């Protein structure tokens, strides 16, 4: 069981309010990702749930009981930190055993759980080593192992992959997702990387300046962003946002079209432009198009073999059914 409910939670540091009143429910077993640009309050929110920071007002319920004034040690939550935060003076085995030792679990059971966790996380050969002798990925696994063995009501991850290199990050992303499928425990995961959010989450919470901009499944957010901020934040490369006369044609203050929802031709189309940089990823090519008369540069994604060279004239046609419209307040219209 691991339902977490935030009611009118606020947090201020001195006179600065970083989280204005906020309501959020995280259902039992859900993989929830808090995502937003740095400084948006996502880590603070996680630390409030963990109990590492005191909330300024409101209350937090965990499993239906008020946990607002419960110290972190007693909330039954496990946390994986960005820096791993392993105990440098203890072996891997002792690191993993620590929460069980604190909980007074008998040694046989401790060893059983350590062996099981080590096996699941490929750490069996490293149990007697110190954290200092491990690679970044292995350290991260130890941190996860330490969180698993105490069988928490929920796991909290604070940007756990940002210290790993790109290849390792993709692997660990998958491992954490698989872990969630296997354990079916509530997980809250904080990241600034919208790719991590999209690939892992059941539910994404997009935050900006301490305010929840939208809550929904990855595809909800992708297909129906509630406002311009979410539209620009979710999806890679970013959605093209166009203002002015072109938007007014569609009866909106701003229109948005994703790079993958724009047809490209070298001969004719709705918008004419000039090819800037073409980024070839192999499977896809991202072309940055300038001088379209639409304001900013437009990015498009093409999958076929279009031989567009720098300076070529290119024609773009947005798929009108995939067009997003926003009103003057930046909110989704229609």
């Amino acid at each position: 069981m691991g339902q977490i409910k935030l009611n009118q939670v606020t947090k201020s540091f001195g006179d600065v309010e970083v989280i204005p009143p906020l309501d959020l429910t995280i259902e039992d077993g859900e993989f929830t990702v808090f995502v937003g640009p740095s400084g948006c309050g996502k880590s603070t929110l996680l630390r409030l749930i963990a109990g590492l920071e005191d909330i300024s007002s409101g209350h937090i319920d965990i499993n239906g009981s008020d946990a607002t004034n419960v110290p972190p040690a007693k909330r039954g939550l496990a946390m994986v930190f960005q820096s791993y935060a392993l105990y440098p003076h203890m072996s891997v085995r002792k690191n993993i055993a620590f929460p069980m030792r604190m909980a007074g679990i008998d040694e046989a059971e401790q060893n059983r759980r350590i062996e099981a966790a080590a096996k699941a996380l490929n750490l069996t050969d490293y149990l007697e080593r110190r954290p200092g002798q491990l690679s970044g990925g292995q350290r991260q696994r130890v941190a996860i192992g330490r969180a698993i063995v105490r069988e928490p009501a929920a796991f909290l991850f604070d940007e756990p992959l940002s210290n790993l290199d790109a290849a390792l990050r993709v692997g660990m992303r998958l491992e954490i997702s698989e872990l969630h499928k296997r354990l079916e425990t509530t997980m809250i995961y904080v990241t600034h990387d919208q790719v991590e959010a999209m690939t892992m989450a059941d539910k994404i919470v997009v935050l900006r300046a301490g305010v929840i901009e939208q809550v929904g499944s990855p595809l909800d957010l992708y297909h129906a962003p509630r406002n311009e901020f979410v539209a620009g934040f979710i999806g890679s490369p970013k959605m093209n946002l166009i203002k002015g006369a072109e938007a007014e044609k569609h009866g909106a203050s701003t229109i948005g079209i994703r790079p993958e929802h724009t047809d490209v031709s070298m001969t004719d189309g709705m918008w004419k432009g000039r090819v800037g940089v073409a980024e070839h990823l192999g499977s896809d090519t991202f072309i940055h198009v300038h001088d379209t008369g639409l304001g900013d540069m437009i990015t498009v994604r093409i999958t076929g073999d279009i031989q567009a060279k720098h300076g070529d004239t290119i024609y773009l046609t947005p798929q009108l059914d995939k067009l997003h419209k926003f009103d003057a307040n930046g909110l989704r219209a229609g």
Partner: protein
Amino acid sequence: MARAVTQKRKIINTVAAWGIGLLIFFPILWTILTSFKTEAQAISDPPIFLAFDWTLENYGVVLERSNYMRFLWNSVIIAGGSTILGIIIAVPAAWSMAFVPSRRTKDILLWMLSTKMLPAVGVLYPIYLIFIKLGILDSRIGLVIVLMLMNLPIIVWMLYTYFREIPGEILEAARMDGASLKNEILYVLTPMAIPGIASTLLLNFILAWNEAFWTLNLTAAKAAPLTAFIASYSSPEGLFFAKLSAASTMAIAPILILGWFSQKQLVSGLTFGAVK
């Protein structure tokens, strides 16, 4: 070419370092050498460096005239006691300043350090009077308290610097892992801070051992440590350099040996945070 220059630099640096090291050590070396001379050779002009009649006579006389063991024991108790008492008080203080700092923490630290800028003699009279009133003049307990207070700012500063190096996330991890404050301190913080605490202990033991102003002014006979033992060979008997040197050598020998065996710990402690 680059290599040749580096090599040359290295030699210059080494020579300079040894030169400075010897310069600093020379007075101690001279004291030790003098302690093995006769009184006449000790004040001879020009001074004799090594070619003198080596004798242990001075040590015999010093040991015969004064109870070395009693002074030594007083030094051990005063230096050890003040250091341990200081650590017991400073650990929680440094702890709270490092991990739950307030807006005034920096000011408090500086204010504490500023007490070290006061010339000790400025408070000699009031402290002397207090000691008389409390009846702790010429007592070990009185010196333990005074030396502890003298060194407390340094102990707190050193521990504070150490604790600051311990990442807060590790302590938070312990909290999340269900550790109570006591367990967090016992199983996570203390083991991680042991090198720092050890260096602090060592340095303060040495400072307290060498402290002369308070030990000389607040003791007479009962609680007098080795500093008083040295002093007893200077003024009252005139210029007995060889015996004075013998007494000095005996006074500094224990701390010199302690320092020698713990030099690695001391150096790492004093340069902590400077080198990564």
